[in-house]
């Protein structure tokens, strides 16, 4: 009898612990997502006002690094990332790709501007989320 009670208590404790673990994990995931969105909004604030009138991020990551639109946005992102250097989550590949172009150009080095699929997907998500009002 006592052994059975102990077993029930143990199973219940395991169930509660796993539920708490799952909740914590979900909660953290949601906080991380909110955090990366707010960090993305902070980083892209000036860009949305001054640099995205002709091209979205999906275009910028595939244009040549010497394109004035890329140069301007990349320069801005390079500077803004010195201030807003938090985790950008899914937006990081596109933003950090452009920021690295800005950094290389500011150092008078040639920038490797080739985007990969991960960067393109990140740029499309940025455009989608901005268009959906993620920062409004």
């Amino acid at each position, binding site marked *: 009898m006592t052994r059975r009670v102990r077993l029930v208590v143990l199973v219940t404790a395991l169930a509660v612990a796993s539920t708490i673990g799952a909740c914590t994990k979900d909660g953290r995931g949601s906080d991380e997502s909110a955090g990366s969105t707010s960090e993305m909004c902070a980083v892209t604030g*000036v860009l949305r006002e*001054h640099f995205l009138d002709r091209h979205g991020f999906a275009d910028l990551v595939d244009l040549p690094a010497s394109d004035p639109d890329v*140069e301007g946005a990349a320069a801005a992102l390079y500077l803004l990332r010195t201030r807003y250097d938090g985790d950008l989550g899914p937006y990081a590949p596109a933003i950090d790709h452009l920021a690295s172009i800005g950094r290389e*150009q*500011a150092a008078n080095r040639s920038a490797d501007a080739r985007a990969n699929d991960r960067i393109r997907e990140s740029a499309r998500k940025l455009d989608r989320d901005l268009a959906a009002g993620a920062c409004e």
Partner: protein
Amino acid sequence: MHHRRTTNRQRARTRRILGLSAVSILVTIGVTSCDGAVAWKLGKTHGAIIEPVARRASLGIYREPSRALYKAYKRSGTKAAQDILWAVGEPPVASISVDGLSISTAVLNRKMKGYVYGDAADFRGALIDAHVADDCLALTLISQGLYIKNWTHKDVGCRTGSTG
């Protein structure tokens, strides 16, 4: 005896004067805690440039950030460059002093937005000149013993933000 006492007193006075002179040209870079105001910080993009001979103190935007600011200006204009410069700033800030004059962190905090946005033509001219000379964009706040506000460009001392 009287002569020796006078000599000692003179030496002490000389030492004091030398000490004060050294203090007066010392760069004061006081990093203070955040007081809620937005201002520039020392570090990744900016530094203090002190030129003791010219009795001049400036805030310098390092070379690479200056080049990036110019590219941003070239694409989207003066206001875009000003907005980036303002957005990049954050507390804590430096207080600067030279030749007995100083500007506290509180004053820098209060006035920085006016420095950045107050005279777009002056800012633009200095940004272009900095680009042509590949210098740092700089904001001179003390010169020849006077408080001033002048966007300019610097070669000496700008890369590291150390004393010139």
